[in-house]
């Protein structure tokens, strides 16, 4: 398939290696990958802060930029949900409504794309470690993606999958939430990380860099041994596609 990439802000600036891993896995599976020039942000931080008017032009720009693409894939559930679900709550130009409807049916989060669209049953890779999986909220509850990433993880050779307690508990990041209610956000990530560490897994894998940044920040500061990994990095590593 010909895939257009949407690279969210955090992936562009903080975690480009994970996005690159996604590119390599997609190419390894025989897909053609294209980066759409001039893409910026989907507008989620402003939308979640209540600023709708301000992001209408940004949403319209996004739709115009991606409307002709066959498939759009992003290494993030929350940015995908922003377009697929929340753009529909904006008063965008009427002539773009049909384009948005169509785009909503063609844009996917990475693991969702692999399992549901590309029909991948298992990735032929090997990873000799124990892994637990963190459900990111928007991927799980807005897009309904629960089993797809688990299927991909479990399918790897030599891997040991350990479900943590309450894997669908929010990590407490929530974008601007983490700076608006800092103490609450810290209390939440503290609890999430307790579940992660108690799982005994060597790695915690997730599909959203934002949650992973939050979790990794806490684990690092508290010198916990659990390592944090984006699912794209896990799959790329298992296939020997990383540098």
């Amino acid at each position, binding site marked *: 398939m010909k895939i257009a990439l949407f690279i969210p802000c955090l992936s562009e600036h903080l975690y480009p*290696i994970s996005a690159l891993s996604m590119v390599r896995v997609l190419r390894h599976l025989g897909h053609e990958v294209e980066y759409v020039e001039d893409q910026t942000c989907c507008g989620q931080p402003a939308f979640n802060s*209540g600023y709708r008017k301000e992001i209408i032009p940004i949403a319209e720009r996004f739709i115009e930029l991606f409307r002709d693409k066959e498939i759009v894939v992003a290494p993030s559930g929350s940015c995908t949900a922003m377009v697929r679900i929340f753009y529909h709550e904006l008063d965008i130009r009427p002539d773009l409504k049909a384009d948005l409807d169509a785009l909503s049916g063609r844009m996917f989060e990475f693991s969702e794309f692999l399992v549901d669209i590309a029909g991948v049953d298992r990735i032929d890779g090997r990873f000799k470690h124990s892994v637990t999986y963190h459900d990111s909220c928007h991927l799980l509850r807005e897009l309904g993606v629960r089993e797809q990433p688990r299927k991909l993880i479990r399918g790897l050779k030599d891997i040991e999958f350990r479900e943590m307690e309450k894997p669908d508990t929010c990590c407490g990041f929530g974008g601007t939430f983490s700076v608006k209610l*800092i103490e609450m956000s810290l209390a939440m990530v503290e609890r999430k990380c307790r579940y992660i560490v108690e799982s005994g897994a060597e790695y915690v894998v997730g599909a959203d860099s934002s949650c992973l940044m939050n979790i990794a920040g806490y684990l690092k500061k508290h010198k916990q041994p659990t390592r944090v990994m984006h699912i794209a990095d896990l799959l790329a590593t298992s296939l020997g596609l990383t540098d």
Partner: protein
Amino acid sequence: MELTPLKTKKYIHKALLDPQLKAAVDKATQTSLSKRQDKVDRIPYWEDLRLKANAIKREVIENLDTYLTQFEQQARANGVHVHWAQDGEQARNIILDLARKRDVKSIVKSKSLTTEEIHLNDFLIENGIETLETDLGEYIVQLMGQIPSHLTAPALHLTRVEIGKLFQEKLGIPYSEDPDELLAVARRTLRDKFLNADMGISGVNFAIASAGSVCVIENEANARLTVGLPKIHVAVMGLEKVLPDLNALPYFLRLLPASATGQMASVYVNLIAGPSRAKYGEGPEEMHVVLLDNGRSKILADPQLRETLFCIRCGACLNVCPIYQQVGGHAYGWVYMGPIGATLIPQYLGEKEGHISPFLSSLCGACHEICPVRINLPHHLLKLRNRVVETGNSPWFWVLGIRAWAFLAKRPGLYRFATWFPGKMQQLLPRETAFPAPGYTRKRALARFDRLGFRKRFMAEDKVKG
């Protein structure tokens, strides 16, 4: 204890530093959730029930005038006095007038959030009428001089030790923390009050339009005594509580107790269709229903947000909310708390007083997932955040920041520069400097910006391949 949602951040910080509160809330919410899950797992048609309940509520709320008129007519035909109250003040005065006319000296109450909403107890007590809560949790909270911290478990934030001390101090009994013993004391005290009360005030879980009856569900039989023993029964209900007919009721009788307390059914389901009739010879001589608006018709005006009126006050969204779990209900600063409270506060009290409440959420959506009537709480919170902004109640530095960001996000070249810049700054600044939220890194290491960024790395990779 006067609470306000304006101080909600202060309450949160205080609550987070209270390990006893945290332990009590955590234990209570986790127990409720696992009991609920156990029941839900035994009901294979649970999702169908939720869909049906949502459809019934939608039908009622979208035709509320029709159903309320029908309810009023039927209730009057049953001999019930029906009163309409536009706000809390009107409702309080209707009840006080009635009490004065009938020379009421003492009132027993069963659990009702609607009466909490209009601060009825304090008002009646200030006017010289003894008013006593008879639900055990409500009784404890009233003795404590507090408001409930949970929709269905009012004293959830208190430990046994605290309740033991409270009873020792207020009721003059020897200290005990044995729940059975404390319960026996409360029961003895309340039994007398029931027998001597002149008026009973209850809430309403559901009102049946076609029958003109009200339904009150409970576990302790205190509501049954409240509505049955005194000569006058006053039921206070929010306008949204009406259901079309008795056929609609069973869905809710299954959904509500399972969601609220993890019960397959409530212990008592009271259906009250008017005062005592000659052939039965028991029950109150007079029955009144106070239909309270208090901002509900304003909520009704918004086609999206009116879904928040579907709420049946089960409290499941509180139990599952990762924020409620940390701090309990008082932190929200009003009688409705948790995710549903966060949507109701700005709608009832206005965006100014409620400007923080819709932000008390990480938008994780667990509340929507658990809601027995499928209220899309995270989406409504987002819409209410927008209202806070549109009504000018967002802090100026956020407004400026977001506008500047939006200006850049439309201009890819500038955006690339503006987002490249903090990375460069970060390389120059000391490793642990977080800007603009220093607290963020108190327990979290800051992520590092990448030297190149994805776009450049991708182009480099493409070149190698080509």
